[in-house]
């Protein structure tokens, strides 16, 4: 079945091939314009306490804390293994340790993870994050140009990486994941992943002169498909087995980006390259 789909893809008009990923990219940009992912605590500041192993619902905990004069909101997070944790958010001037000591008196068996991030630190982290992303992106673009020395394939690789990151961000917004330091790290790692598969495709199509374009494309897709599934496998294990928030976030963002990369490499980039090669042949 997969092979048939691929054959169809390989036979599609390159311009059509390019359209779909571009539409997805634009939709992602629109989603981000309407609703950019919320800033997580380490970038937006605030107080958060995650409670593990408590026999109460999120609303019970919220009511209990409100009775004790704490202005909090609580929500339950259920992970894939069925375990639940409750996350409490409170304004910045709250002392997380006081909330903890009150919770401890009511739920003695609960494990708690309090985090407080002040405005000064979260601001700095925002700046650093933005700087790191922009510089990493420029650095990536320069490296790609140095490796290919050919503007159109290079631009496509750079655009694919941009689109991967944008779509991953849009999916974060849809699934309600917050933008945090950890997710920024994952977005940066996506640059590496994205370049990986795109360079594979580009080298195969442009440098492998012994095969036809279709053969080269098939061989690249077959390799690329295995690559993505193994990486998805590794990330899925991480996401499934860990309860730590940082890990879940990194894993989900990488999974989103990898799925986007699949489309951007094998449809968008392949389309651009085929069009580019045909055009070269006509000349």
């Amino acid at each position, binding site marked *: 079945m997969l092979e048939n789909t691929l054959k169809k893809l390989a036979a599609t008009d390159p311009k059509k091939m390019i359209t779909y990923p571009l539409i997805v990219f634009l939709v992602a940009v629109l989603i981000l314009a309407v609703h950019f992912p919320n800033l997580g605590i380490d970038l937006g500041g605030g107080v958060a306490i995650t409670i593990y192993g408590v026999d109460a619902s999120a609303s019970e905990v919220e009511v209990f804390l409100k009775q004790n004069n704490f202005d909090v909101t609580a929500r339950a997070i259920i992970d894939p293994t069925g375990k639940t944790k409750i996350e409490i958010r409170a304004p910045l001037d709250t002392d997380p*340790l*006081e909330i*903890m000591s*009150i919770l401890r008196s009511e739920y003695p068996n609960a*494990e*708690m*993870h*309090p*985090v*407080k991030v*002040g405005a*000064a*630190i979260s601001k*700095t*982290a925002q700046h*650093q994050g933005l700087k*790191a992303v922009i510089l*990493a992106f420029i*650095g*990536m673009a320069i*490296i*790609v140009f140095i*490796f290919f020395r050919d503007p159109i394939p290079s631009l496509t690789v750079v655009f694919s990486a941009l689109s991967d990151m944008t779509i991953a961000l849009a999916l974060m917004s849809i699934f309600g994941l917050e933008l945090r*330091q*950890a997710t*920024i*790290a994952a977005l*940066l*790692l996506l640059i*590496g*992943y994205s*370049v*990986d598969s795109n*360079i*594979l495709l580009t080298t*195969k199509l442009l*440098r*492998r002169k012994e095969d036809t374009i279709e053969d080269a494309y098939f*061989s690249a897709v*077959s*390799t690329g498909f*295995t*690559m993505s599934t*193994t*990486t998805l*496998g*590794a*990330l*899925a*294990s*991480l996401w*499934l*087995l*860990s*309860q*730590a928030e*940082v*890990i879940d976030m*990194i894993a989900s963002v*990488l999974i989103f980006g990898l799925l986007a990369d699949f489309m951007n490499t094998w449809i968008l980039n392949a389309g651009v390259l085929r069009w580019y090669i045909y055009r070269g042949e006509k000349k």
Partner: protein
Amino acid sequence: MNWKKVLLKTKVIFLILTVVVSLTLIRGFTIGDTVVGGLSYGTDISGGVEITVVLEENNTVLLEEVKNSLEERLNILGVKDIKLEPWGNNTIKISVARVSDKEVDNIINTITRQGVFYAEFNGVIFATGEDIKRVDQVGYDASKSAWIVPFSISKEAAEKFAQLALGKVGYPVDIFLDPPVNSVLIVSQDVYAVMVMINEFQFVPDAKSLPQRLKEAFNIDVIAYGNQTAEEIAKLAEGKEKVILIGINGNLESQLRNFGIKVEKREPRAGEAIDEFIRRIIGLYGPYKLQEGLTTGEPRTELAISIGGTRQDVFAIEQAKIVRTVLESGSLPVKVSLEGVNYISPTLGEQFKKQVVQAGMMALIMVGVIVYFHYRRAKIAIPVVLTSLSEVLAILGFAALIRWDLDLPSIAGIIALIGTSVDQQIVITDELLGGVKREKITKRSGILKRMGRAFFVIWASATTTIIAMLFLFWYFIGGLRGFAFSTIVGTITGILITRPAYAEIAKILLAEER
């Protein structure tokens, strides 16, 4: 299978050596007295707390001073495994490993106190932090049922006190630590009543009341709140550093903020008596009733701070220890505020570690299974998994060598790397195998060219990954440096050691099929 041929390749020998060295480093060993290697973990795994404090001033000289005094304080408090890291020109990150959440409370209380000390009598300050000469060990006084922190003051201060106290039996003596100097306290009616009327704060009728003493010694105005408008209060706050709202609800806080006034709000803790609440807010120890022996005009240099409580009262003991620590280390040269707390209990950290180790193993197994199904050959799947495993070991070995604290993001980075590592081995394998349906290595002359292509892909993606992660490593101080670190180390190990070795192994194994 020709194992001998595989094992004799230089690149494979190099890989095996790397693994052996890494394993030795991960285990750790001692040469003489120095420990080499061994894995160490960040606070999010070993359990512990990360505290970020920010100085009120941007000054790198002060930053160093504050860092040193905080370190001294934590040492006096008896906390082990502390790391203090200055950051920028006004921030210090403090991480303390393996502490309980109750200890975290004490640590935070100790480090956020500025530690400015005043001894005051009837509205006159007679000793400050500079007059403290020696602080003794905390002890319990059963007759007063209180924990005592004894200390001695300079002769000059003692003489000043002797003059002031002459003949004033029963007058209150106050000791303050970090009082809110030059401010306005807006207190609720019941708090005001306690401050003025109750004998807790005043012993003889003609002695000055607590609000009077605060006014004269520290320029602190205490005002009972009886629905004054925000405007009236703003007028009172002119020239003062800040307004502190004590036990007052409603929207007065935001109204005063609109006037551009610095406002702080304080609420009693659950179960806290009003007089305890007042003491906590103004940093008061005492008042102590002046005994007859001290009113003779004879200077006495020995003083003490007492904290009421039973012998078993954990809270009182901790308080006494904190006071002792703060007195002994002196006051901080600038105010610090608590900007960040991140605490993980040791059991939770242990649980996280177990989960990520399981995730890592499962990732390797899944990768192996997927590779096996793709090629239908254990001959490829097994070397792929083993090569990735050796890459993981190499990262861990390097982390052990430089004593890098592995935290959760570092480990996530390692597992994500298993994905990249396998990706690149698949690129190599597929190039060796040729087209989709071709199962054997094609002409020998083509191999170099194919390997060249595979390694072009590998080098290009490795370079971009390293570039992207270097920016992360440079620009962040937080946990993400761990993620960047493991990714960079893993990628470098990959291009220099594991990928070339795998290429050699794959060439031999797949060539046999011809």
